[in-house]
């Protein structure tokens, strides 16, 4: 195990050199493995990788333009933000309308609810994507911890 890890180090270093700096903050999933997820009755019941979400971090991700950017399309109860889009439904009170597992599936892969959705699959299986920017190939938009943070935030909106 130790040997394998050491062997990977130079490879990781080389990879970090070819990733443009503009993507450095977006390539956050590189630090975490991709966890498989399972849909059951429109829910992902188990947290990704068994990770625990943090609602405060989740709120920051939801409002960050280069991370979740949820408010580009949804109304959220973040009064200090000037602009919200209306491509998607308002998410105020979503935590009292839907189960945690359902919210998790919405964030992970909304196309499971609506195949024609314009919502990005923040944790959609990377192998199913077409012509992803070279620097982002094989990566998910948010990593598993960030997904859980956003899920914790949305669940807290009662």
């Amino acid at each position, binding site marked *: 195990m130790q040997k394998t890890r050491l062997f990977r180090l130079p490879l990781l270093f080389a990879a970090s050199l070819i990733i443009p700096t503009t993507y450095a903050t*977006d390539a956050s999933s590189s630090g975490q493995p991709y966890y498989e997820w399972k849909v059951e*009755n*429109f*829910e992902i019941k188990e947290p990704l990788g068994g990770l625990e979400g943090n609602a405060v971090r989740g709120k920051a991700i939801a409002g960050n*333009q280069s991370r979740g*950017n949820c*408010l*580009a*399309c949804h109304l959220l109860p973040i009064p200090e933000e*000037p*602009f*919200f*889009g*209306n*491509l998607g439904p308002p998410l105020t009170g979503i935590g009292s309308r839907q*189960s945690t597992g*359902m919210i998790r599936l919405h964030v992970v892969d909304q*196309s499971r*609810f*609506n195949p*024609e*959705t*314009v919502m*990005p*699959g923040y944790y*959609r299986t*990377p192998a*199913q*994507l*077409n*012509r*992803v*920017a*070279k620097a*982002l190939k094989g*990566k*998910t*938009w948010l990593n598993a911890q960030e997904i859980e943070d956003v899920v914790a935030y949305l669940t807290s909106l009662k």
Partner: protein
Amino acid sequence: MKILTLSNCFFFALTLPLTTITLSAAHAQQPVSGYDYLTPEMQEMQIDDFGNPGMLTVDAGEIRFSTAGKNGKSCASCHGDDGSKLDIKHIASYPVYSTALKKPLTLRGQILLCQDERIGGPSLGHSSAEALQLEAFVRRLALGETVNVDVSGEMAPYYEAGKNLFHTRWGQVDIACHQCHVYHAGRTFRGQTLSQGQSNGFPGYRYTAGKAVSTPERITGCLANLRAEPYASDSVEYINLEVYMNARGNGLKIETPGIRY
């Protein structure tokens, strides 16, 4: 558990008919210029020749139009001072099918060809500032002319290829052009209003980028937003997309340089 299952059924019963209605309405949509989705302030900026920052690019193109190439001739030698001998209806019909090249020729492609063959170079890069300036100047001559691209006959397969690309999902975001620009035109994306993605204002001035761009560069901007790998400016894919997008806007008036987000 039972409640969830019921709520799912309800959810689908509610959304599926709605989706179908939206889709059928969207396919029959009339072309609407991006101008109609601008704020009144931005509309005012566009129609004011002195306030429209895209006019700087048009003016640079006008100078270049009468600048002699290697063989001493300029665009103006054939097309008249200020392009007065150019047929504006023809300008509004690009991309056109070139029987010599056996493929569609965009307005920019035609300008680059002239630059090489008629005025003897120097060759301009497809995505060079000079090529953009000339394209903007020539397209501006057809201001107010109706976009009228003929996609019958030999153009048909290129139109179909462009249409396929327009309906192809891209990048990490995994959505296609039509999903935003057909289904959701008029809705807001953060502080911006989504338009139909029409090309009648291009080459135009991108307010958010602070520079003049033409259709291929605008598509590259979209692909970057979708976290997809863009194509080269002169790629077959962009030419086919331009054929489809311009023809999709047949009937709209040319607004170059339009102000767009």
